[in-house]
């Protein structure tokens, strides 16, 4: 066994891994003593490919920065609205044309007017931009995550069926994919949002998800075409494993690496798409708040030179998309079996 392929013994650190590690060493020593013949080839800690990938991911600086930002955003948009002292939709703040710049505003809280910090400033109607960003993020992120999951699911199933069974099925499915790639994507999204969208999250998620799976399907199919000829597939068939099980349990895990990377990028793309579609007024309806919505409404403020109204939602989109892309980059390096540090 090549020396470099073996995971180096983990440092007995703190926490659960440290405890497990020490216990494993202890067990090894006990067993070692009982054996007549020492088996030197047994590594101390056995790691799966996913564990190895996770280790490589943790060593990827940009990916960790991206993950940090992403977790920060995710926590903010889930936790902050829980703790805010007022209903964000209708805040009777100091209504002033063009809104207040970042600083302090007077708000009605618990029936009393109070001076409160508004770090991102306020809008025309006195809404807090910070709250727009935080609450808008819930919808934007939800669109990103769920449309990614839908695209991933459909793409993986279609790609698996096409790649594994091949022949006429493959031909048919791939022509459908070709059609999807042939139509201008943004245009179709807009048209679909106009005709099928009802301004709610679900319909937008479905539209984006069901229009972006072909990319995943192509990736999965390409992997399957080479993997179905692999020796381990023949070996699995030789012990009597059935077709579906071979396709989904034996081949699919081996084909997932590029799909995971593509799905992160798809998620970033979906967040941008949501903003774009909502900005044009075809996406999330005005009574809800999303980052795209916030940007669209901010056009009013731009006239007065109120930069904060557009700046902060825009930054939120940019930062999230950037973070996801960093993560995708790190995943690509971590999941590539040829990239060993």
């Amino acid at each position, binding site marked *: 066994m090549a020396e470099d392929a073996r995971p180096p013994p983990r440092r007995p650190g703190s926490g659960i891994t440290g405890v497990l590690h020490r216990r494993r060493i202890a067990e090894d020593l006990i067993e070692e003593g009982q*054996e007549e013949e020492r088996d030197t080839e047994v590594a101390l800690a056995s790691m799966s490919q996913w564990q190895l990938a996770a280790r490589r991911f943790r060593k990827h600086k940009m990916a960790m920065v991206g993950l940090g930002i992403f977790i920060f955003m995710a926590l903010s948009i889930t936790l902050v609205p829980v703790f805010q002292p007022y209903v964000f939709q209708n805040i009777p703040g100091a209504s002033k044309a063009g809104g207040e710049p970042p600083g302090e505003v007077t708000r009605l809280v618990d029936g009393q007017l109070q001076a409160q910090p508004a770090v991102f400033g306020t809008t025309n109607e006195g809404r807090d931009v910070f709250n727009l960003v935080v609450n808008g993020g819930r919808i934007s992120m939800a669109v990103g995550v769920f449309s990614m999951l839908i695209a991933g699911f459909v793409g993986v199933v279609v790609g698996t069926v096409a790649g594994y069974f091949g022949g006429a099925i493959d031909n048919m499915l791939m022509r459908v994919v070709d059609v999807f790639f042939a139509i201008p994507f943004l245009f179709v999204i807009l048209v679909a949002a106009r005709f099928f969208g009802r301004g709610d999250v679900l319909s937008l998620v479905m539209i984006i998800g069901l229009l972006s799976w072909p990319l995943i399907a192509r990736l999965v199919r390409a992997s399957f075409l080479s993997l179905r000829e692999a020796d381990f597939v023949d070996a699995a068939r030789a012990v*009597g494993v059935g077709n579906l099980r071979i396709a989904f349990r034996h081949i699919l895990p081996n084909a997932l690496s590029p799909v995971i990377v593509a799905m992160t990028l798809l998620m970033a793309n979906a967040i941008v798409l949501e903003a774009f579609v909502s900005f044009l007024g075809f996406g999330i309806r005005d009574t809800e708040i999303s980052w795209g919505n916030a940007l669209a409404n901010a056009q009013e403020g731009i006239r007065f030179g109120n930069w904060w109204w557009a700046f902060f939602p825009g930054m939120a989109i940019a930062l999230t998309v950037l973070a996801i892309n960093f993560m995708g980059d790190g995943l690509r390096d971590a999941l590539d079996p040829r990239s060993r540090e």
Partner: protein
Amino acid sequence: MTTAAPPLPVPAGPAPDTADYLLEVRDLRTHFHVMDGTVKAVDGVSFAVKRGETIGIVGESGCGKSVTALTIMRLLDIPPAEIATGEILFEGRDVLALSDREMRALRGNDIAMIFQEPMTSLNPVFTVGNQIAEAVRLHLKVSRREAMDRAIESLRLVGINSPERRVKQYPHEMSGGMRQRVMIAMALSCEPKLLIADEPTTALDVTIQAQILELIRRIQAETGTALMLITHDLGVVAEMVHDVVVMYGGRVVEQGTVDEVLLQPRHPYTEGLLASIPSKGMRGARLNVIKGTVPNPFNMPKGCNFAPRCPYRFEPCPEHDPRIEEGGGPPVACWLWKQAPGHSIPQELHDQQVAAARRAAASNTPATTAVPTYHEAPR
């Protein structure tokens, strides 16, 4: 190994008593339809394996050994493959007539297979224990826990130390020899009646080869599994098998017990194979080779496949195709041993011809003649 082994079946005649044969292959023809035409990868192969015995299938690359094995396991994609004719009887049941479901139940449970490449035959994303346990659970109604225990037991059987820990390891943590042991353990986990080993040691280095062969032999003795050993290594054949089937160009050219075939080769091809084994006594001499190359699979010769390379070629060879099952005589596909149509030479003359051809070949020096010299088999 006895020299007085019972004769092999000659399937062209009336069906022999099949009771004691575990596997019988009769006139199997597997063709591949590809863009450039049709390749007759297996073109009329018949042999039989008895319970608990070992049969060796020998021949050079591309002669159809592996395709024969894959056809028996029904692992070929149809199309492009086509099983044109033939019967494969396993315990009297026709394997080719089974439904996919029945075939899956047979694979792994009754017939298991070991592949050539241990490095790539295990799935990289599962632990070896999971893979063996899966094979067990496919065929036996046992719990996950029991299947894992069985996996541990079968790893112990193939001589892997501390199998309790090995089952939790991934293939990439093991060496090639270790992985081949795992493959053997997986193949044996359901106690198959027939084990097909397709060049199980080709990808391993020599010391590990010996270990793996010894392991297969030991396990075969312990479990009573019949073994179909596919190899191009005649040394392995001499050590491991009872019966030998020599294949060339998709056909069986000679078959018999290991002693018959290796000590008194009848077919010129077998003779050539044996002569090309390097031996200690020939140090410094040029290695004997069979001149020429394997014929183009799209364009097989009209008569005998081996005729273009054969040093004993005579009139009927390029015209008429000798078949091993034809016209009685010993189990050899060669006109030197059978009566060619339109060449009604009495048997005596035949024998004289063989002897004369051998003498002629032996007296010529390799440098001055196109006819290669064959030394006697180094045994």
